[in-house]
């Protein structure tokens, strides 16, 4: 006799994996299409109508490529890294409530689980850089560790401010606590928290303008310089999957989750999430990259103090 709870988690896990994988494919396509149109060119166009099959074909190409391990690299660490990069993403999706009842795993401490597993990503980047036996990769790994560790603090503080407001760490409760109309959402009640969260989310997912660990023009490809075929493919997918996670969390925490005018439901959730993803993509194709010291200055000199101030502001609101 299988525990129905376990069965539910297993089914949900498969569903989430499919959702994440499909999302990654769709987002690769969306990224290239948006980049194209921002730059006044069509983007992928030849494979399928308007190039819609391009990410699929790219995926096939990556799978067909030879996997090479650099000389003197540590093969275990080297190949563990991309797998570890992708795995926690699926776990992070478990407690996210897409709709009032559409949640894989109801947890009282859902947000803690997500934050715990989000910290996992940096480990895989670090291992990839270390295991590659490549100087550029090593620099990328060093950058990613410093960046991710630094940005986790303001991220936590801004999430904490929401938890203070709602008085709960359960994502479903936080969602439900926000009203249907935009000015009832945490993003407008607590705008500073939302901005800080968004900036930190960009940094945590290594998206431009904070894509320092892979900074193409400085470190060739940073931590994944040496990866070929699906090794690179997994890093690439994980980047988009991570985007889905941080945008989902942002939607739940700040944008009212599934709440929306007229007919609340999961479509509102997806709409908000994809709008955020669109913004992240557009930012990537608009700004130059920041320098490393500026990145850390921004974190320690601006975001951390601001997040603390915000926490005080939120407690006052809650008290009143």
């Amino acid at each position, binding site marked *: 006799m299988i525990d129905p709870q376990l069965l539910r988690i297993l089914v949900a896990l498969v569903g989430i994996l499919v959702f994440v994988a499909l999302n990654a494919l769709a987002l690769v396509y969306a990224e290239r299409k948006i980049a*194209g*149109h921002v730059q*006044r060119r069509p983007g992928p166009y030849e494979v399928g109508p308007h190039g819609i099959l391009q990410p699929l074909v790219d995926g096939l190409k990556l799978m067909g490529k030879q996997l090479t391990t650099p000389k003197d690299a540590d093969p275990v660490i080297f190949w563990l890294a991309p797998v570890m990069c992708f795995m926690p993403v699926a776990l992070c999706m478990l407690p996210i409530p897409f709709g009032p009842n559409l949640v894989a795993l109801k947890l009282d401490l859902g947000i803690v689980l997500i934050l715990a597993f989000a910290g996992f990503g940096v480990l895989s980047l670090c291992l990839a850089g270390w295991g590659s036996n490549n100087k550029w990769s090593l620099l990328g790994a060093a950058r990613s560790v410093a960046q991710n560790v630094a940005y986790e603090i303001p991220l936590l503080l801004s999430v904490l401010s929401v938890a203070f407001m709602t008085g709960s760490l359960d994502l479903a409760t936080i969602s439900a606590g926000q009203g249907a109309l935009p000015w009832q959402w945490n993003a407008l009640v607590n705008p500073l928290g939302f901005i800080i969260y968004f900036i930190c989310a960009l940094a945590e997912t290594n998206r431009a303008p904070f894509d320092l660990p892979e900074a193409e023009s400085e470190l060739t490809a940073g931590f994944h310089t040496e990866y070929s075929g699906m090794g690179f493919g997994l890093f690439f997918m994980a980047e988009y999957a991570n985007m889905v996670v941080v945008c989902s969390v942002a939607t739940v925490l700040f944008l009212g989750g599934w709440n929306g005018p007229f007919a609340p439901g999961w479509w509102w959730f997806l709409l908000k999430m994809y709008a955020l993803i669109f913004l992240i993509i557009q930012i990537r194709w608009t700004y130059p990259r920041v320098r490393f010291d500026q990145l850390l200055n921004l974190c320690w000199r601006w975001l951390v103090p601001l997040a603390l101030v915000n926490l005080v502001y939120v407690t006052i609101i809650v008290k009143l």
Partner: protein
Amino acid sequence: MYRLEEIKRAARGMWSLVVGLNITGKYFLQPNVTIHYPRQEVDNLATFRGHIELIPEDDDPLTPRCISCGTCARACPSNCITVTKKKAPAPTPEEVEQGIKPKAPKDPETFRLDFTLCSLCGQCVMSCPADAIRFSQNINIAGYSRQDFYFDLIARLRSRLPKHVKKAE
């Protein structure tokens, strides 16, 4: 005071980021400028300088204007042109009787271009005394081997003719 200045600066900086997003957003909604190559082509081929080709005589589309003097071959910085003159035909019996040596025709026996070496500088076109060379407008040029780019320009001149002329020949 210093803090205040810094905060002002940061606020202005944030605004510049919004301006940037606004610009890329606007371009996102504008139509593309790409020309989809195999389906569309650019329209400024009149001044395109492709590989050289021979110009035929005005009244005879099969004979090149070329007088096989070899100036182009000497002017070429990369030595990619070879021109050989036609030999005089064997004298007919009447000519032998009259003691006339038949003249060699002016047009060249062979006119070859090694396009693998050519850098399209146009020295040959500029130096030609008979105005017999011009740039082609052939932009779709691709091949599987080096040999595909050793052009016999006389054969090319003939193959360019319309179909009915070829048949008549």
